[in-house]
């Protein structure tokens, strides 16, 4: 309070002044009325409130102290943390409960084909990608690339701003400036200006195709609309065009053909329709289902390929053969089926095992009648596809097991790109719009795209990243992520699939269709308007569009919009004679096969989840490698972990060698897409002094060698280069290899279909052990008994489960150095084993998670009881009790426990690292350093369902809970559920004759069981194979019976 005279004194003098008569008519206060000299003085004072007497005396030192402190505090208060505000909904949207996940159907387009998705969304953040269970192209499964989308969305290295190049450098710009540029530049061009071209990614999006049509209308003198992706299916479409006279899409009915021949075709792995193909393939690989039909029949798959693929690895018979010999092999098969003679027949066809293989295939194809299919992969030239169609047609398979439909994706992409580059060089392209893509990095090397791009005066790149191409363009627009934008596309079967945003664009990006609409000067520029405008034109669109659209959005697709089979007639065509080097191992005619790896064509190079996902065959992470066969390596003097120099024409690349059993003789397979220089903090950013990961092999790839090149020379440089493989390299000491070989039969139990029919529980007798007695009091589980079943007949090793688990359970990426030390953190790993002949091994995959042993060895040794059982038999891991002795890891016979050797959340603290937090699953603890972790059987998903069931006062359904790995699995190889519930799929599977438990003889009572791998080999080929010791246990088993 002010130090003015106290009230009592005031009121006392009031009366006096009132008596004396007021000095003025109005008075402001009683003091005024009184008008004492004190009051007069007060009025005269500059600061009436301040009584100088009342201010305590301050000496100079104290004054300076206080002043100094005040100044310091004032300064401090200005440098504070940026306030982060979380705004609550002031009105909660209907149906929304904070913390409860919602699911939205959407899709993403890879290679012009929609991948139907279901996004798990927590409080407005997309957390987990799942497949859309209602969509025929997914049936609930999703690929590893789709699973990794959330990380791509939250990648801090994504392009965040519009950039404009003025002079030499690209500077930050903004949307207004870009809009101004578009209006000015394209506005002028719309009035008859020439020379504007578009290079987009191949697409089947109705909206994009509609905008392309509009583009041609708006820019009548345009320089063309091109699409290009390095891993395109040009030859496939072209092959159909040769065979049937028009570009068509080929659909294989893998569940219907009894005998199938897959030629360099990774139908279950890299094919755009791999999810549905995998499901169809698996439907005929379940032995129990196969005998249910009257005539017991399982499909028989023959695969011929140069490099082991996911698909080849699960074929009944696999022949490693150089890609350039498949043409000859197919002609030979056709000839044998026709009973004619091949004009110029290469000598290698008579070599073993090729000759025997061809004979077996021909015999089987002949016997199976029309229920056959021959599938060819995109690496093969068009003519091989055409020949396959011709054989399929002759067999009567076209229209039955091989169905042709229209092809929405543009054909001849590579040729188109070449034409574009010619036009760019000729100066006819004045303005180039690049919708996504990275042709500077991935275009065929002989085109010289980068040089041509420099000749284009105005180039606009729309992309998620400021990649190699974006940096060469005059404009770069940061693209909104597929999870942030509206769109549509068609799945492989043609179903129109909708893409809806899960969140507003993080960095205010624009989607490709929105940019294109701006360029076209469209009346609509918002994504949703563009999509709705297209969908309205669909014949399926109902009368009430809004209701229909809402329905489609809910489902994620337009029901009944799939393609209808096309009526086709076979054209006559001449197949050129096959050419392949006589000696496959002659240096100078070595074959180099370009394959796709875990990072696709390079677009996922900055996605840590995918970079650290082991290659399905080599198990190499963080690198691509030149896969060579054992014999090839010996002949050419190559060794593991050394650099190999490959020369094709004038181009030279050094790639680390990996000796991969099952690679074809004389063939080297290398994944493309690695060695990015402008990818980001993971994939390499030369400007930011982050070294590229892997080696770029695009310089070796030309227009004519998009699939494989046959004229490579190789030279062992002897330079060391360490590859981070999560599983042992093939090169191991002798006793280790022998032991591994001996154990495979016990770990991965196999049987042939014929043998299994007679002895359905054969595999249970692979291990003999004395009666098992426990040291401990054994717990009886009366309630739920959670367990898992993994069917090895169906597992293809596709890695979807690995990335799905990574996303669900907040599994950290540890980096190459740590993987080299064996410290990868994956809770589920897919073991890959080779058996038999190293040149043509039997391949097997075995996913391993924590087995949740009832008598868990990890629990017995933990000194602090940080890992212990719950009442339902889950082996729980209590992170905040764990002190990190790692004893549990030692005592785990499956070695599925993972230890946080370092803090694995340091990347949160990096610039932009906050974004990574966005995709952390809020239901799963983020682990600190020094604690052990492992698969929990997705305990958070169990809880979620349990809570729901409790609220609804009902029992948990038999197959209601799905773990993340199960959810992702395209073949339903993984099933989780309650072993105590007889209706649960997992319990039914456990009761099957071919179920067995790995290391059951340790009396640990694992809750996970495997179903033996039942194959359907051709007896003519199989006998030859068992010669190299398939049956260490087979003999013991016979004694057992």
């Amino acid at each position: 309070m002010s130090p003015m005279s106290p009230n009592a004194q005031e009121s006392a003098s009031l009366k006096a002044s009132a008596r004396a008569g007021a000095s003025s008519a109005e008075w402001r206060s009683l003091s005024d009325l009184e008008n004492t000299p004190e009051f007069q003085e007060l009025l005269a004072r500059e600061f009436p409130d301040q009584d100088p007497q009342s201010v305590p005396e301050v000496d100079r030192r104290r004054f300076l102290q206080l002043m100094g402190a005040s100044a310091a505090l004032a300064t401090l208060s200005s440098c504070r943390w940026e306030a982060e505000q979380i705004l609550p909904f002031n009105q909660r949207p209907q149906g929304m409960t904070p913390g409860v996940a919602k699911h939205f159907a959407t899709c993403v387009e890879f290679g012009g084909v929609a991948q139907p998705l279901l996004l798990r969304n927590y409080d407005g953040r997309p957390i987990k990608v799942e497949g859309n269970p209602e969509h025929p192209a997914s049936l609930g499964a999703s690929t590893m690339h789709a699973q990794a989308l959330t990380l791509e969305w939250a990648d801090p290295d994504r392009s965040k701003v519009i950039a404009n190049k003025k002079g030499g450098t690209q500077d930050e710009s903004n949307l207004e400036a870009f809009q101004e540029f578009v209006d000015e530049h394209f506005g002028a061009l719309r009035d008859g200006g020439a020379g504007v071209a578009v290079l987009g990614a191949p697409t089947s999006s109705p909206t994009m195709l509609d905008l392309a049509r509009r583009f041609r209308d708006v820019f009548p003198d345009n320089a063309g609309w091109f699409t290009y992706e390095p891993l395109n299916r040009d030859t496939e479409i072209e092959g159909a065009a040769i065979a049937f006279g028009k570009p068509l899409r080929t659909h294989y009915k893998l569940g219907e053909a009894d005998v199938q021949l897959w030629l360099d075709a990774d139908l279950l792995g890299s094919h755009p329709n791999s999810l549905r193909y995998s499901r169809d393939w698996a439907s005929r690989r379940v032995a129990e289902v196969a005998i249910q039909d009257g005539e017991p029949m399982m499909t028989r798959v023959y695969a011929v390929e140069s490099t082991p693929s996911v698909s080849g690895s699960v074929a009944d018979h696999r022949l490693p053969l150089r890609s350039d010999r498949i043409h000859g092999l197919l002609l030979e098969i056709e000839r044998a089926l026709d009973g004619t003679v091949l004009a110029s027949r290469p000598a290698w066809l008579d070599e073993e095992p090729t000759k025997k293989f061809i004979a077996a295939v021909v015999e089987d194809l002949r016997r199976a009648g029309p229920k056959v299919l021959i599938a060819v992969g995109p690496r093969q030239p068009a003519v091989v596809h055409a020949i396959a169609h011709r054989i399929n047609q002759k067999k009567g398979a076209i229209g039955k097991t091989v169905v042709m439909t229209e092809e929405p994706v543009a054909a001849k992409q590579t040729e188109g790109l070449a034409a574009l580059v010619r036009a760019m060089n000729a100066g006819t392209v004045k303005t180039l719009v690049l919708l996504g893509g990275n042709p500077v990095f991935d275009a065929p090397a002989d085109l010289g795209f980068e040089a041509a791009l420099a000749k284009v005066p105005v180039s606009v790149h729309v992309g998620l990243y400021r990649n190699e191409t974006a940096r060469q363009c005059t404009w770069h627009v940061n693209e909104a992520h597929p999870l942030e934008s509206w769109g549509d596309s068609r799945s492989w079967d043609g179903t129109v699939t909708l893409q809806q945003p899960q969140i507003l664009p993080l960095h205010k990006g624009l989607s490709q269709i929105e940019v294109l609409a701006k360029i076209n000067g469209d009346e609509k520029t918002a994504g949703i308007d563009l999509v709705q405008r297209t969908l309205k034109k669909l014949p399926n669109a109902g009368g009430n569009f809004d209701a229909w659209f809402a329905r489609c959005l809910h489902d994620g697709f337009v029901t009944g919009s799939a393609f209808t089979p096309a009526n086709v007639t076979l054209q006559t065509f001449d197949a050129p004679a096959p050419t392949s080097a006589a000696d496959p191992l002659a240096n100078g005619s070595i074959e180099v096969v370009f394959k796709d790896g875990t990072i696709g064509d390079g677009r996922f190079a900055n996605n840590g989840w995918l970079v650290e996902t082991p290659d399905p065959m080599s198990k190499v992470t963080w690198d691509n490698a030149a896969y060579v066969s054992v014999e090839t390596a010996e002949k050419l003097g190559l060794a593991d972990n050394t650099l190999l120099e490959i020369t094709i024409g004038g181009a030279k690349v050094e790639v680390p060698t990996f000796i991969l059993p099952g690679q074809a003789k004389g063939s080297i397979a290398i994944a493309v897409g690695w060695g990015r220089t402008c990818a980001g903090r993971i994939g390499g950013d030369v400007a930011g002094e982050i070294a590229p990961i892997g080696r770029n092999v695009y310089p070796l790839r030309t227009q004519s060698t998009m699939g494989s090149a046959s004229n490579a020379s190789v030279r062992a440089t002897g330079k060391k280069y360490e590859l981070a493989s999560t599983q042992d390299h093939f090169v191991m000491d002798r006793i280790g290899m022998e032991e591994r070989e001996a154990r495979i039969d016990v770990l991965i139990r196999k049987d042939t279909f014929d043998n299994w029919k007679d002895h359905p529980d054969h595999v249970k007798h692979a291990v003999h052990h004395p009666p098992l007695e426990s040291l401990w009091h054994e717990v009886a589980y009366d309630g739920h008994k959670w367990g898992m079943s993994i069917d090895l007949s169906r597992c293809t090793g596709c890695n979807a489960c690995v990335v799905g688990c990574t996303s669900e359970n907040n599994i950290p990426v540890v980096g190459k150095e740590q993987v080299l030390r064996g410290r990868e953190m994956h809770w589920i790993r897919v073991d890959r084993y080779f058996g038999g002949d190293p040149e043509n091994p039997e391949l097997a995959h075995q996913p391993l998670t924590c087995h949740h042993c009832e008598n868990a060895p990890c629990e017995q040794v933990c000194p602090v009881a940080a890992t212990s059982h719950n009442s339902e038999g889950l082996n729980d891991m209590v992170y905040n009790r764990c002190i990190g002795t790692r004893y549990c890891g030692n005592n785990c016979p499956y070695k599925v426990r993972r230890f946080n050797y370092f803090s694995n959340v340091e990347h949160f603290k990096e610039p932009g690292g906050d974004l990574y937090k966005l995709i952390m699953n809020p239901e799963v603890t983020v682990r600190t350093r020094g604690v052990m972790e492992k698969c929990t059987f997705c305990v958070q998903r169990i809880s979620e369902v349990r809570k729901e069931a409790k609220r609804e006062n009902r029992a948990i359904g038999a197959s209601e809970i799905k773990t993340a790995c199960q959810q992702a699995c395209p073949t339903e190889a993984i099933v989780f559920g309650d072993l105590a519930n007889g209706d649960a799929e997992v319990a039914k599977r456990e009761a099957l004759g071919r179920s067995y438990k790995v290391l059951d003889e340790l009396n640990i009572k694992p809750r996970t069981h495997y179903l033996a791998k039942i194959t359907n080999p051709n007896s003519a080929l199989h006998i030859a194979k068992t010669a190299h010791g398939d049956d260490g246990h087979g003999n013991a088993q016979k004694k057992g019976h």
Partner: protein
Amino acid sequence: MTTLDPSHASEAFKEFRPPLLDGKNDYKTITDQICGVPEWSHSETPKAWYIAFTIAVSMLGMLGAMIAWLFWMGVGVWGNNNPAFWGWPIVNFVFWVGIGHAGTLISAILFLFRQKWRTSINRFAEAMTIFAVACAAIFPGIHVGRPWVAYWLFPIPNQMDMWPQFRSPLLWDVFAVSTYATVSLLFWYLGMIPDLATIRDRATTPVRRFLYGLFAMGWNGSNRQWHRFERAYLLLAALATPLVLSVHSVVSFDFAVAQLPGWHTTIFPPYFVAGAIFSGFAMVVSLAVPARQFFGMKNLITMRHLEAMNKVILATSMMVGYAYLTELFIAWYGGNPYERFAFLNRVMGNYSWAYWSMFSCNVIFPQLFWFKKIRRSIPLMMIICVLVNVGMWFERFVITVTSLSRDFVPSSWGYFTPTLIDALTFIGSFGLFFTLFLLFCRWLPMVAVAEVKADMPRDEAAVKGA
């Protein structure tokens, strides 16, 4: 009965048995000699001690730095990986615990067996034990992922009512090692009290008198005190004896109780104890040889002592060798395919170099001690004893790492490669050991004065004269 009395026996064999000490010693020279060392003035202290101490302290500093780095970064600074969750730290732990066996064995078991030659070496063998256990105790503590909660290993009552998990051998370890450390320390200290009192009585400075007096706990050498002292010493010896056997048995349970092939064997407890005594004696010899040289104790720690220890080394070497062969035999005979492979892998696999280093150092080289000349050759015994310690370190490495790196499922097999931090931490632990040891040699009676005197041939004339 009288023939069993050791004193009578010694009388009887006096002329056949050479005296325990060399040269002409009497009570005074012994006291002067042993107590003289702690009474050295600054200038009397040999330069070599300062140099050695500087080096040891520097290594200790390095240990501190390594531990600080470890705590800052996490366990990942070591080479441990996913199959080999345990690596060098556990190897070092078992190595140091093993070394810590000789002291108590010499003090307790040899005392109970009336092996009088022990008196010259027991004091510093016990000291070595305690320092080795101190080194060992570091490792389990820093080895855990979250050392700041390592105290949860102890059964401390808490608000969560959360006890340790008593089925875990790691917990048994905590009890075994802490008990052993406590009893060893008490035993060592108790034996030292009369000697501390001697130094107190001879003290020329008040500080020395106060400090030694403090630790001498009012010892006045009365008959009653001697009586009590000897009772207590005997009791502690009896208490310590089973501990010698138990501590390494329990340490071996860390391995034997796990179900890992190569760990899960019943031979481990005796095998570990034999190995521990083996390495402990080798360490005593490696320390005694330079110590008797530098501190002028050659007359007290005689060639006869060294030879006796070398004989123990030879005997335990053969026990260890026998255990190695038994393991291999059982691996084959037992018919467990996983165990068979674990041993085949040790002998012939990726780590065969480690196995054969172990085998040659522990079984082959010590056989040279069959030759008396080698047993009595200072340089050769030094070389062999150092090799034994190298070999015993490798034994623990072979057991821990080779078994872990290749267990049941071949896909998860790996190969352990240590880091520089691993190596520097191990070297640093020697820094701790030598720092403590050098301080002990310099400031405490290195040889048990009272006990040595008790076993000296009596100077009959002097006794009579008095």
